[in-house]
């Protein structure tokens, strides 16, 4: 196995996914197949190839420091489940 159920549970928790035991089993099997397949790459000798962070040959895409239009607070908050005093409202944190 390329991945254990324990690891899947951990990753699910990090992503705040509440998986049932059946789901955990199912995803472990699926992820295992994917990882095995991707693992084939490690058969290649890549020691002289730098890690690829981006597939497109682009660099230095930067913008000038200029201020532009912003959303109105009403628009910014329009999809928020709850708001108060022009701010997003969130449940207690701790």
């Amino acid at each position, binding site marked *: 196995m390329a991945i254990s159920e324990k690891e899947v549970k*951990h990753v699910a928790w*990090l992503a*705040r996914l509440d998986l049932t035991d059946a789901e955990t089993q199912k995803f472990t099997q699926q992820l295992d197949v994917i990882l095995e397949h991707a693992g084939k790459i490690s058969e290649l000798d890549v020691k002289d190839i730098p890690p690829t*962070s*981006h597939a*497109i040959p*682009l*660099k*230095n*895409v*930067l*913008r*000038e*420091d*200029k*201020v*532009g*239009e*912003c*959303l*109105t*607070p009403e628009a*910014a*908050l329009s999809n928020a489940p709850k708001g*108060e*005093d*022009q*701010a*997003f*409202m*969130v*449940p*207690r*944190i*701790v």
Partner: protein
Amino acid sequence: MEYESVIGLEIHVELATKSKMFCKCSTVFGEAPNTQTCPVCLGLPGSLPVANEKAVEYVIKSGLALGCDINLYSLFHRKNYFYPDMPKDYQISQYDQPLCINGLIDLDMGDYQTRIGITRIHLEEDTGKLIHVGGAGRIAGAEYSLVDFNRAGVPLMEIVSEPDIRTPEEAKAYAQKLRAILQSLGVSDVSMEKGSMRVDANVSIRPKGSAEFGTKAELKNLNSFRSLQRALAYEIERQTKALNEGRPEDIVQETRHWDEAKGITSTLRTKEYAHDYRYFPDPDLVPMEFTSDYVEYLRAQLPELPDERKQRFMREYGLPVHEANLLTESKAMGDFFEETVKLYKGDPKAVANWMLGDMSYYLNTEGLEIDETAVTPKHLAELLKLMDKGVISGKIAKEIFPEMFETGKLPQVIVEEKGMTQISNEEEIAKIIDLVLEENASTVEEYRAGKDKAFGFLVGQAMRLTKGRGNPQLINRLLREKLQE
């Protein structure tokens, strides 16, 4: 056992760009909640970030001023975690290819010099601001929280020191010097009060001479240089006590909150989450690659830095090292000094003495920075000129000083309003001296019998009768003349 402390600082600085790091929203501080947001900084689907070139330039300049190596190839990564102040549920930051590495700050601690290494400087984005409702505004007892995303996405530079700092005083000196350097570069307004400079301190203790590290605590809520120094002193004392009294279990790796009013640190209750950030290169932001010509071009633009300024103050104005150090501790102090010297045209040492004496005393008592007061270099220069011309005595000048600060009135205005002009009229002073001699006949006898101290007493009496306005030189001369008659 004798312990030594090991301190490392992580300092976050908001960069003084006009627009945010990855979008065009304004960065102006203190606006109404959520008036400076857009789909990019709110993390709405389909939006694309584009990096602000000014912010990148500011970080490289900071790195050069701090003696760093600049990575000619640098990347943005996503740091994944959940927190309500962060709309995307990841923070765009840098990971293994930050813009700058391997820098240093040299500290002059008065009786010794020390060098503090800088591990790295990277560029990231700030988070939003949380306002906790209920529970006295603290996160722990709050019923719910409100989020203002105006600050989310403001460019943030993180400067991580090596664990080279050994005392709370060094920590304060390091943070102050860093601030002075960034001020001279103009890359941030580095205000701890406004939160554009935020200091977190990692601190542990170990037996003196040991090469291993003890268990460290991370201190937060250090909102001033004073807090930084006090919190570290308290925490070192706490850890030392725990070890000396056989309670090593009291030192655990944790985040501790500094309470400025109570003067203690306590465990900060935060939601448990594994520091499993799963960094990966941000696919929306392509790599940055710089030529060494570009880096050298930025290096050539560096202004005079605090160390160079200190040397120049010693050379140009003949200031001793200690004074030069203090006057270059912040850009505002140094600027104030030079401007005053220019207006005054007199002895620069007199300017330094007033700034480091009465002025610093006042600023410290009021907890103000020089540029937060109504006093300008013109005020101090005029005051010194009035003294030089004999219009007021040094004693009167000291009296005028606080009022200058409070009202912003020029010294001559205060002098006129209060009738504080020095009495330099010979006839007037002579009359007063006659009165003093008459009233203190026995002291006069003592003086004539050879008791030199009696002279000082008589001068004091004359000053008292003139309410401190008598010209001291004139009183001295006339008194001596009269006594010899």
